[in-house]
């Protein structure tokens, strides 16, 4: 018989669910390694990003934002009330308000910091979500399930970094003149009205062994300006970069353990 019977399908579904609960993929049990061997999969234990502020320029951030929003079908509103942002630039005093002082160096003052979801190791957004629509994957990515989000916006109150956006209206009804050709990526969905969204570390690209869009774009413009990698691997590029340079993170005193590092010197 071709395909799988309903019974067989349910068996697979049930086993997958069971195995997911046990923290192991159902496929591995059924055909050990077979599926994984045939496809490129990147496995990380704690994905993180180091952004080299000595190399990042406002132009790079602008391009990163453009390509990210283009890739993920994030509409432009040109209105701070309803805007949706996955990655964007912010001055030092707003990105690091607790570090701000009158005599900050001219260099720091002139910089623009790329901000995005910090994929915290101890994410408050996941703690407060009543449905598990946002949760932390085993590889550290703070993921969104847009099928499940009820739009209560508790996560937006919980996030101390302002990394989350809400779809106050239908994204497909965003102003046409600001969004030529929207939705821009036929391989990615849009969201629907009433759900929260944010950066997902391009998990769908990582799964295929690709880098996040912003990392790819930034490095195209300036080599090694964005370093993406696995913090659990001591030999990863990101660990090497962090070992070598002084880096800061946003609002560390809150205990969220952000995984976006900003290399200063």
């Amino acid at each position, binding site marked *: 018989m071709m395909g799988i019977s309903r019974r067989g399908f349910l068996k697979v579904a049930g086993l997958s669910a069971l195995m997911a609960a046990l923290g192991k993929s159902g496929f591995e049990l059924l055909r050990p390694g077979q599926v994984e061997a045939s496809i490129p999969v990147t496995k990380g234990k704690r994905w993180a990003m180091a952004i080299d502020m000595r190399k990042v320029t406002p132009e790079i951030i602008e391009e990163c934002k453009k390509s990210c929003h283009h890739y993920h079908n994030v509409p432009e509103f040109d209105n701070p009330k309803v805007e949706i942002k996955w990655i964007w630039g912010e001055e030092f005093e707003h990105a690091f308000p607790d570090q701000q002082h009158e005599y900050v160096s001219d260099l720091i003052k002139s910089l623009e910091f790329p901000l995005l979801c910090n994929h915290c190791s101890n994410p*408050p957004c996941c703690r407060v979500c009543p449905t598990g629509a946002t949760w932390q994957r085993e590889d550290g990515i703070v993921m969104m399930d847009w099928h499940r989000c009820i*739009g209560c916006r508790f996560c937006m109150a919980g996030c101390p*970094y*302002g990394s989350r956006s809400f*779809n106050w209206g239908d994204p497909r009804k965003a102003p046409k003149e600001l969004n030529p050709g929207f939705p821009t990526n036929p391989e990615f969905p849009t969201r629907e009205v*009433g759900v929260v969204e944010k950066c997902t570390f391009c998990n769908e690209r990582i799964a295929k062994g690709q880098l996040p869009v912003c990392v790819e774009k930034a490095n195209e413009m300036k080599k090694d300006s964005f370093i993406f990698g696995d913090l659990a691997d001591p030999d990863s590029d990101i660990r090497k970069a962090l070992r070598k340079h002084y880096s800061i993170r946003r609002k560390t005193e809150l205990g969220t353990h952000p995984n976006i590092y900003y290399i200063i010197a």
Partner: protein
Amino acid sequence: MLDRALKGSSRYWGWLIFLLILMGIGFVLWLYQFKVGLKITGMSRDVSWGFYIAQFTYLVGVAASGVMVVLPYYLHDYKKFGRLTVLGEFMAIAAVLMCLLFIMVDLGRLPRLVNVIMYPHPRSILFWDMIVLNGYLLLNILVGWNALAAERKGVHYRTWVKVLAYISIPWAFSIHTVTAFLYAGLPGRHFWLTAIMAPRFLASAFCSGPAILLLICFIIRKLTKFDPGKEQMRTLGGIIAYAFILNIFFFLMELFTSFYSQIPAHMDSLVYLFRGLDGYGRLAPWMWTFVFFSVVALVMLIVPYTRRKEDTLAVAAACVVIATWIDKGLGLIIGGFVPNPFEKVFEYWPTVPEVMISVGVWATGFFVLTVLFKIAISIKEEVAA
């Protein structure tokens, strides 16, 4: 017993029709909001909760305050409150219903509400809020209705009703404690990040709820043959006085911690609320109105003469309702979002549709309250006759 709600004066029906009209307007606007999204409200990326959640918070307090007439009766055997317990319980029912409606109108994807039950996440305070609010609703329906039925038949209520009444007492405290935890456990929202949030919530609940009940008692006495009782109302006045003093005391403690410590993040929201920040101060007139009514209420509640005299007590109660509503139904939630995580100010102000939807929810609550009180009072009148 329900039939009592179907026989009433033309004033009774006129009031219900008036409420139905408000409900209708609110419902139509809500349908519009459901269709196009929450963009029709004043909420924004920065102030992501607004009027709806603030009303919800205020009304959880009103619901919890039912316990202020239930507790003296059941725990301290203060028999005189027997006349008021059903009113307290019925007010709680109407208030919880409004709470649930305010949550619903605030959701981005209401049809998925069941996900909270299908994928329960006990680490979320919202999960527990759902449990305690619905549980409290059920407890009050069971206790209120059965106690009233017993009263009608002239018998003593059953033991299980009494057991449930006892359970409802700590349960009332739980609903407002859990609601406070929604806010008090969020890193980065310094205005809310205070251990005193739950006590503050309870204090403001236990003055605002009884104040509303007291005002309703005045109306009931005027419109019906049922007298809630002089002493009962005076006792309510005492409860309001203590709770309101505590409420203001807790508020001053917040001011001390913020301004003596001089930690900017803890001061910013308060500065925004009372003086304005970076040139934005839309709420300042409201907050000073809160201060004004608080002072008036404090004086009138502390001075024995004005507290005991009925018309001045009514004025004091009205001041309490206004002051607590501005504090909790406006300042507390909005203030928590200003300034935003980037230390920028983005102001919020409710839109007309948003306010009208809220009015619709309030009207629904008052509709339920009117019908329930009509039933209760008709029965009390019959029993007295």
